[in-house]
Every structure is written in structure tokens, then in C-alpha cells.
């Protein structure tokens, strides 16, 4: 339903990977927002062909947004439409969800005046007539592997033997990723191994909150008043934002990051200390 590979078409199709068109492509970017009941997809796209843009404006071609999860949903998009809302009872994005845009011919289209296609097609474009109902172009696919409905799932652990340091804390698109050079560094197999990793959790939170506090979109001079900030579109920032709001944090400041971590992190350091004392007591 959604095209991921280049299919063979008997006529030029605008995509980001095919070279039927001289330059340009069909870029799609989607931001997901949500509340308790609804998902909202904010859409940015660019059809980089004047020929196709004109067809769309003249209604000789129709833009579609396709959302594929358990089944397929199609939305006819008006050229100025930039958002789609769907009830959570009608769409699941905790399973892999793919989103793509496509352009469909609503009438037979002669390519005679198409100046955007490549030289190969230019020679016989007078003979190209794409039938009504056919696909004229499709965008890249945007994939969601889950929504941000679980704001407390902040961390991901990975092993990377090629690391130039013992651990590396990285801010991913939705997660704080802690890379370990080897499994031993996670205290695997030891009692309380989860809790023994808490200092890394602390470091990850520090890094992520520092980035949040210094983002000029949210505040000034490393100081953020959370009530003045809308839900960030960045998924990781959105999780931190929700978490802070849920934990009644109202301000974030580069100088007070530790206090904020204390409020949001459910006693990570205390638990760590208890675990270490426990190990000492048991003679381990």
C-alpha cells in the first residue's frame, strides 16, 4: 500500500529516489502530537515539480495522505491542508505506523507540457498519457514506532564494542541512549544490577535537561518557565516536558538541574546508595 521500493512504472513518477524527474523529489515530514483521545499529525511536504503542483492546483491531480498501521487510511488533502486528526480509538501507533503522501491523477494527463522530467523522457513525452486514477508521485515514508504515550520510558541501553570511551550518553530522537562498551559495565548478573546503573541514568537526565534548558525555543539564558512552553515537537523533549509537569516542576534552570532531577527521578541516588550498602552488608 505504501511504496518503499522503486517499482517499475511505465511512465515517469516523482519520488525521492527515482530519476524520472530532472531534479527534486517529494519530501514529507510529519510531527505527531496527542492528547488523551486524539492523535494529530502535522504535515510538511514539498512537491518539487511545477508541473505536478499545477495539476494539483487545477484539481487534475489529488494529494493523499496514507496512514498504514493495522489497516490503511486515506485522507484527501487540500493543497493548503497541513494537519490530520484521528481518534485513538481508530488508530494505533504503538505498532509500527507508516505515513506517506501520494498524488493521483483525476483525469487522463498528457505529459506534453511536463518540463520537469529527465532528458530520456523529454524525447517522447508527447506520447505519454498517464491514465486517470494512476499514481503520479509518492513521498518518502515517515515511520512511528510508538507514540509518546509512555513519557516515563526515557532510557534505552545499547552495547557498542567500538566505543572510544567506557560509556557514552547520547540524546536520541525519543530516548536517552546509554551506550556501554561492554556488558560488564552494566553490572549484568549482579543482584540489583538495574539500580547499580542509576548513576548513568542521572548523567543521562543531566545531559537531556541541560539541552532542554538551553534551547532558545523554550526560554532565555538557560532558564525555562514550563508554563510558557507548548508541548515540544521533539519527542524526547516532549517526554521530559510531560514528566516535569507531572512531577510539579515549574522552572528549569542550568544552575538547578540537580534539584529538578531529584524531583523527577524517583530517588535514583538514594536507591543506588541503598543497593551498594546492601551489597557491602551481604559480603559481596
Amino acid at each position, binding site marked *: *500500500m505504501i*511504496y518503499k521500493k522503486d517499482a517499475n512504472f511505465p511512465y515517469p513518477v516523482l519520488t525521492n529516489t527515482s530519476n524520472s524527474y530532472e531534479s527534486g523529489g517529494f519530501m514529507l515530514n510529519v510531527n505527531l502530537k496527542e492528547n488523551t483521545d486524539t492523535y494529530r499529525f502535522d504535515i510538511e511536504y514539498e512537491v518539487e515539480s511545477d508541473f505536478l503542483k499545477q495539476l494539483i492546483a487545477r484539481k487534475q491531480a489529488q494529494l493523499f495522505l496514507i496512514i498504514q498501521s*493495522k*489497516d490503511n487510511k*486515506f485522507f484527501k488533502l487540500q493543497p493548503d491542508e497541513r494537519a490530520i486528526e484521528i481518534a485513538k*480509538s481508530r488508530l*494505533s501507533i504503538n505498532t509500527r505506523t507508516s505515513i506517506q503522501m*501520494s498524488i*493521483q491523477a483525476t483525469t487522463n494527463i498528457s505529459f506534453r507540457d511536463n518540463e520537469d522530467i529527465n532528458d530520456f523522457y523529454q524525447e517522447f513525452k508527447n506520447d505519454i498519457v498517464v491514465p486517470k*486514477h494512476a499514481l503520479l508521485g509518492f513521498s518518502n515514508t515517515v515511520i512511528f514506532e510508538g507514540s509518546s504515550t509512555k513519557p516515563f520510558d526515557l532510557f534505552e541501553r545499547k552495547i557498542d564494542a567500538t566505543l572510544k570511551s567506557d560509556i557514552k550518553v547520547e540524546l536520541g530522537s525519543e530516548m536517552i541512549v546509554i551506550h556501554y562498551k561492554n556488558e560488564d559495565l552494566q553490572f549484568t548478573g549482579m543482584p540489583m544490577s538495574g539500580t547499580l546503573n542509576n548513576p548513568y541514568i542521572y548523567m543521562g537526565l543531566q545531559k537531556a535537561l541541560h539541552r532542554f534548558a538551553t534551547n532558545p525555543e523554550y526560554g532565555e539564558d538557560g532558564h525555562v518557565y514550563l508554563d510558557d512552553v507548548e508541548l515540544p515537537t521533539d519527542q524526547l523533549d516532549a517526554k521530559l516536558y510531560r514528566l516535569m509537569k507531572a512531577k510539579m516542576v515549574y522552572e528549569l534552570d542550568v544552575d538547578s538541574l540537580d534539584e529538578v532531577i531529584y524531583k523527577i527521578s524517583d530517588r535514583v541516588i538514594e536507591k543506588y546508595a541503598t543497593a551498594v550498602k546492601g551489597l557491602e552488608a551481604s559480603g559481596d
Partner: protein
Amino acid sequence: MEIKLLNKSYKKNEQFYNDFLNDTIENNDDYFTDEIVYIKEAPDFPIYMAKRSEEVRKQLFLEAFETVGNHYLDSNRELHFDEQFWHSLLVLKKRDFLLREYPEITESITNFNNIVLKNFDWENYIYKTVIGAEYITDLVEDEAKRKYYNEVIVDNLDLYNYMIKYEVFRNKQFVFNILSIVDELELSSVLKKKITWRDDLGDDPRVGRQVLLEFNKAYPVVMSPMLEKEELKEIFMEYLGYYVEDADLKVLV
């Protein structure tokens, strides 16, 4: 209602089957994840329709569509399309109902797996029901009309199954449009016909499936799932003409 979710260990597990028969699953923590889901209500509905007479099967389906349409579609969709949720609900909350309605599950683990723990895909009766009930509930407002379209699905089950099996067709509007065309032009019996006059079409070719196959082959040069019903109808008749004599069609239209 609170439902503890089973972890994956329950599948094809003889001990689990015995524990189900002995009613000792709920207190065994080994079978569960930490996750609990909450749903408002979970009334009984038929979950398995095979091996019944056509008339009985139809009634069971209609009952299932109605119950699911009225009571199960308000939760987040990830829940009502979640295999673990359904299996957990059946095993934990519907044991008496299952033993009463499907006594054959006590005969063998095969029957149990096939009826209660069936994979949640287009062959699963709950899946068929959830997706059909959702499509009809969303597209048809009038209660009596809903019932009517539910019947259209059951009367054209072969075609419906074929549509929800294939990704390219698994779309609310397309499924509804095709069923409406079939109903409007009274094509049901023609589409069910076995094609005996061609031997190049594989096992058990039927007219309806072949017409859908033509749609599949033509995609995306014919982006059929996105078409309006009237546009779709023209192409439908064209493809039907590949398999049915013109003279037969004229009688129909």
C-alpha cells in the same frame, strides 16, 4: 474491568491448557506480565463461527458485530487490535462462557488453541468482527442500516475475507464500497461462482476473488482503494467482464 495481561509463554503450552481446564491460571504469576489493562465492560459475544450451519453462522456473526460495535470500539485501538489482550480476556474472564459455548475445547489442546488462542489475523473471528464492526459503525449511522450492512458482509464472507487479508484492500472505504456495489447490483451469487472453465487460475478460483485480484494487479495505475464508489463501479464491471460472459452481465445490470 481489570485484566492482567498474559506474557508470551501461554502459547502452545500444554501446561497452560491443563491449568485453564483446572481453572488455576489466574493465581499463577508465571503466566503474566506486569501490565494490567482496564476496560469499561466486556459483554460476551460469539468468538468462533466455524463448523456451524450457514444459517447459525450468520446469526452468530450478526450477534458478534452488534456486541463488538456497541461495546468494544471506544478503547484505544491498540487494545482492540492486540492479540494478548483478547487471549487474556478470554482465558481470565470468559472461561465459563467458553466452556458452555465451545465444549469441544475440553476435548483437545488443538481445539483450544484453534478456538481460544487463535492467532489474531484475518482468519481469527474476533479480528474479522472487530474490523467489520468498526468499518460499518463508522460509515453507517442508522441502526437498521448497520444491521443490513452487517448482513451484507456475512452474505459475502469470501469476498470480505479476501479484502481484509490483503494490505492493499484493508481500508474502510474500499471494503464498504465493494460490498455496496455487490449489494446494489445483486452480484453476490455471481461472485461466489467457482470458475470451472479455466484451468490456469490456481486452486479454487472464484469470480469475486479474481475481480479483486485484477484490482490488485492494476494498483497503483488504478489506485482503487482511493476511488469513489461510482468510479470503482465502472472498473469493477470491466474486471467482472473478464470472467463472466457479457450476456450474463446484461441480465444483472
